[in-house]
C-alpha cells in the first residue's frame, strides 16, 4: 500500500538547535500512527512542517507519491492535512457551525446559514455527537471544542489528521468518546497521526508507534511488536525504574477538615479530612467540580456554605493571599495561562508569591537572594534550563510545571493542592513530578491531588475522593480503590459499559 503522506530525509535547524535530523516518516490510510518522544524530541517541529507553518531546510514531502510544497496552513488544508491541538484553536465568538466552516475556501462570498447549519448538524451526526451547531463556542468544554475541531477536519475531507495531545485535558469518559471518533475516522480511511504522553492510550488506539529522540527517529514498529518498557527506553534513552513511585509514610496529625462545603450551582456537601503526609486523590470527570473545590480552598472562588477547619481553627478563606498566609498553595491545571507569567524569568516566577521574603529594608528586591532560591529549586527539582533568568515561556511543559511547583513550595505550604500536575508533560518529567509528590508527603505536607489520569491517582493517593456533577460520591481507601470502583463512582451506575 502506498502511504498518503511520506516525509523523506527532512531536516530542520533553528539557531543552536537541530530540531529534526534527516527524519523519515510515513502515514498510511486507515491507520492510527502514534508519535512518541519527550518534549524537545522534534514532534512539534514535524507537525509544523506537515501543516506548513515551518519549511524544512532539506528533504521532501510526498503526497500520494508526488512531491509537494506546503507553504502555509491554507495550502496544507488544500492537500487535506488537518490538525487538532491540545488546546483547541476555536473562535470563541463564533458558533459551532461557523467554527467548522470558517476556514473553507468556498465559492461565492455569501454565508448560507441554513445550509451551513444543516451540514454542520450532518457532520456532527456522522460523528455521533450531540452538539448544537448554533451554540456559541465560548461556553463549550474543552472536549466539546475538540469535537468541533474534529468535525472541522471531517468537513474538510481531511485525509491526514494530526492529533497533538488531544487527550491531555480530557476526562476518561471524554477520552473514550474521542477514541470512538478516532475509530470512525480510521474506518473512513483517514491517516491519523496521534501524539500522547499517556501509554495506556497509545496501546488502546495506535496501530503503529514511532519514537523520536533529539530530532532523530529511533524506532518505528507495529503496535504488536512493542512493549511499554521498550518504548519508554527508546524515548528517554535509558531505563526508567518504577513508573509510579510511592513510598509508605506515617500519617501525621489532622491538618484540614472540610465539612459540608458548598457553592451554589457548582458543588455541595463536600466532606473530607487531610492529615499531614497524606495524599488525598480527587478523581472524577472533567467538570465534576474537583477544581472548583480546590479553587474554593485557595480563595479564588470562595465557597458560600460549609466549614473549612485548618489545624483546629475554622477559617473563612476569601482570597488567594489569605489562603497563602494560612499555608495553602494551589498548583493550577492551566499552567500556561494561570500558573506562570510566561515572558518573565524563571527566578521571577519562583519568587512571585513569596516576594515579601526578598525585600530589603527599603523595599528593594534582593536579587541575590532571589537567585539563590531559584538555583536551589533548579537543583532540587532538576529544572533543565541554561539559566534561571531565562523566560519561563521558553521551557518545556515538564520544566514549566517544576517552576510552578517551585514557586509554591517556596511559600512553605502545609497543604498543597495539585490540579492535574502531570498534564501534557512527558514521561520522564512525569516520573520526576511523582517523585517530588512522594517526597513532599514524606516531609509531612498534606496533599490534595486532583487528576484525570486514573492510573496516576490510583498509584499516588493514600485515599481517593470521587466526585460527580458537584457531588461527593465517596472516599475510597488505597486498598479498595480499583479502576472499576472509581469509574463507577465517577460515572454513576448507568455507565458501566465504559471501559478504560
Amino acid at each position, binding site marked *: 500500500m502506498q502511504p498518503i503522506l511520506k516525509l523523506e530525509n527532512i531536516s530542520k535547524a533553528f539557531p543552536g538547535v537541530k530540531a529534526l535530523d534527516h527524519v523519515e516518516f510515513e502515514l498510511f490510510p486507515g491507520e492510527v500512527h502514534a508519535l512518541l518522544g519527550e518534549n524537545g524530541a522534534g514532534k512539534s517541529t514535524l507537525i509544523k512542517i506537515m501543516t506548513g507553518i515551518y519549511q524544512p531546510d532539506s528533504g521532501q514531502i510526498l503526497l500520494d507519491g508526488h512531491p509537494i510544497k506546503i507553504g502555509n*496552513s491554507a495550502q496544507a488544508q488544500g492537500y487535506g492535512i488537518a490538525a487538532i491541538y491540545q488546546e483547541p*484553536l476555536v*473562535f470563541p*465568538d463564533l458558533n459551532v457551525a461557523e467554527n467548522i466552516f470558517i*476556514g473553507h475556501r468556498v465559492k*461565492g462570498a*455569501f454565508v448560507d446559514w441554513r445550509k451551513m447549519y444543516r451540514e454542520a448538524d450532518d457532520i456532527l451526526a456522522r460523528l455521533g455527537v*450531540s452538539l448544537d451547531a448554533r451554540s456559541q463556542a465560548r461556553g463549550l*468544554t474543552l472536549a466539546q471544542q475538540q469535537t468541533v475541531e474534529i468535525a472541522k477536519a471531517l468537513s474538510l475531507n481531511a485525509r491526514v489528521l494530526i492529533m497533538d495531545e488531544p487527550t491531555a485535558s480530557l476526562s476518561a469518559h471524554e477520552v473514550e468518546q474521542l477514541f470512538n471518533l478516532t475509530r470512525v475516522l480510521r474506518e473512513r480511511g483517514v491517516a491519523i497521526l496521534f501524539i500522547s504522553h499517556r501509554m495506556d492510550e497509545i496501546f488502546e488506539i495506535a496501530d503503529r508507534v514511532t519514537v523520536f529522540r533529539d530530532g532523530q527517529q529511533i524506532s518505528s514498529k507495529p503496535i504488536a511488536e512493542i512493549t511499554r518498557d521498550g518504548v519508554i527506553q527508546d524515548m528517554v534513552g535509558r531505563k526508567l525504574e518504577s513508573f509510579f513511585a510511592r513510598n509508605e509514610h506515617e500519617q501525621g496529625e489532622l491538618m484540614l477538615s472540610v465539612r459540608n462545603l458548598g457553592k451554589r450551582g457548582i458543588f455541595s456537601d463536600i466532606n473530607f479530612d487531610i492529615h499531614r503526609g497524606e495524599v488525598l486523590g480527587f478523581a472524577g470527570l472533567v467538570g465534576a467540580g474537583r477544581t472548583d473545590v480546590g479553587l474554593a480552598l485557595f480563595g479564588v472562588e470562595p465557597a458560600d456554605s460549609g466549614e473549612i477547619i485548618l489545624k483546629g481553627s475554622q477559617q473563612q478563606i476569601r482570597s488567594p493571599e489569605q489562603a497563602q498566609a494560612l499555608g495553602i498553595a494551589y498548583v493550577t491545571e492551566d499552567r500556561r495561562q494561570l500558573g506562570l507569567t510566561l515572558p518573565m524569568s524563571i527566578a521571577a516566577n519562583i519568587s512571585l508569591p513569596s516576594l515579601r521574603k526578598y525585600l530589603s529594608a527599603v523595599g528593594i528586591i534582593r536579587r541575590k537572594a532571589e537567585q539563590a532560591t531559584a538555583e536551589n529549586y533548579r537543583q532540587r527539582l532538576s529544572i533543565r534550563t541554561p539559566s534561571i533568568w531565562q523566560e519561563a515561556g521558553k521551557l518545556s511543559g515538564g520544566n514549566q510545571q517544576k517552576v510552578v511547583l517551585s514557586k509554591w513550595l517556596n511559600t512553605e505550604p502545609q497543604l498543597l493542592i495539585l490540579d492535574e500536575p502531570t498534564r501534557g508533560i512527558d514521561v520522564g518529567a512525569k516520573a520526576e513530578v511523582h517523585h517530588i509528590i512522594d517526597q513532599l508527603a514524606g516531609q509531612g505536607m498534606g496533599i490534595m491531588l486532583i487528576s484525570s489520569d486514573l492510573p496516576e491517582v490510583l498509584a499516588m493517593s493514600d485515599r481517593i475522593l470521587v466526585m460527580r456533577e458537584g457531588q461527593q460520591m465517596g472516599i475510597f481507601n488505597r486498598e479498595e480503590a480499583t479502576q472499576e470502583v472509581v469509574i463507577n463512582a465517577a460515572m454513576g451506575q448507568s455507565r458501566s459499559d465504559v471501559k478504560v
Partner: protein
Amino acid sequence: MYRIRHYIRPEQIREFSLIFIIMLAVLFFGTQIDGYYSARTFNRIAASVAIITVLAAGQTLVILTRNIDLSIGSIVGFASYFAGQQLSANQDMHPLIAVGIAIGFGALLGSVNGLLVVYGRVPSIIVTLGTLAIYRGVLVDYAQAKTITTDMMPTWLVDLPRVNLFTVGEIEIRVMVGVAVLVVIAFQLCLTYLLLGRRLYAIGSNPDAARVAGLPARRIVLLAYILCGALAGLGGFMFLVRFGTITVSAGVGLELSAVAAAVVGGVNIFGGAGTMFGALFGAVVIGTLEQSLLRMPNVSEFVRDALLGLFILLAVASDAVILQQLRSLWARWAREARETPAAHSEKESGHAS
C-alpha cells in the same frame, strides 16, 4: 429556555439593554424638557448622530479585528477638504463622483494605515496615533490656510441637508440620516452574511486560530482599514454637506467620539465581538445625552460636560452589569443542560435534523 440560549447570545441581548438605556434617558429628559416628546427632538438627534454613526461603523470594522483607528478625525478633515476643493473647481461634477472622490480619498488614507499595520507589523495604536498627526499636518500644508466655503459649493450640496428621504407625520428622515442607517444595515448584512464578515470576527476572536485555519488575516485586516478609511471619507463628505465651511481643523477629535460610540455600543475593544447596530445604538446613546443636555433648562453651560461624562459612565457600567447577569444566566443554563445530559440531547436532536 435552552432553545433561546442556542439561538441568541448574551451579547445580542445587550443591544436591547442599550435600547433600554436610551429609553430611560428619554424618559428622564422628558420630565426635564418641555415639549421633549416631539418629532423635532427625534429629527434633531437623528441628524446630529448621522456622521458619527458612519464613523463608528468604520471604527467597529477595525476594532472587530483587534485593532484600532485613531486617525479617522484627520481622515474626515482631509477628505472633506479635498472633496470640497474638487467640487469648487468643478461645479458640474456629478454628485456621485463627488461622493466617490471623498470615499476614495478616505480609502487611500485608510490603506496607508492598513499597510503599515499589516505589512509593517506596527501596532495599530502607534500607526494611527502617528497618522492622526501626519494627515492633519499634511492637510494644513496642503490647504495653505484657505477655507472651503458654502458659496464655492454647487447648490445641490448646500441644499442636501434639508432634503428628506421620506417623512412620517412630522418625523423627517433626512438623506444624511438615511445614508447613515443604510451604512449600518448594509455593513450589518455584510458582517452576517458575507464570509468576509464572519472572518473579520474570527480574526479578532482568536488571531492564532485564524492563522492556523489558513484565513488570509493580513488581507482582511488591510481591507478593514480600507473600509474604515472609506467610511471616514464618506463621513468627511457628510461633514462637508452639513457644515459647508471647511477649515483645516475640520473633524478634530472625531476619532475619540467614534471609539466612544463603538465602546458604549458594546463593541469589544479586544476584538471579535460587536455589531453595527451596537455601534449605532452607542452613537445614539451619546447623541441623545449630548443633545438633550444642550436643551435642558437650568443646566448651565459649565455643568453639561460633567453630566455627560457621568451619564456615559453610568451607561457603560449598567450595560456591563446587565451583560454580566445575562452571561451568568446563560452559563447556568449551559450547566443545567450538561448536568442533565439525557434531557439535553433530546432537546438538541429536536433541531438537529
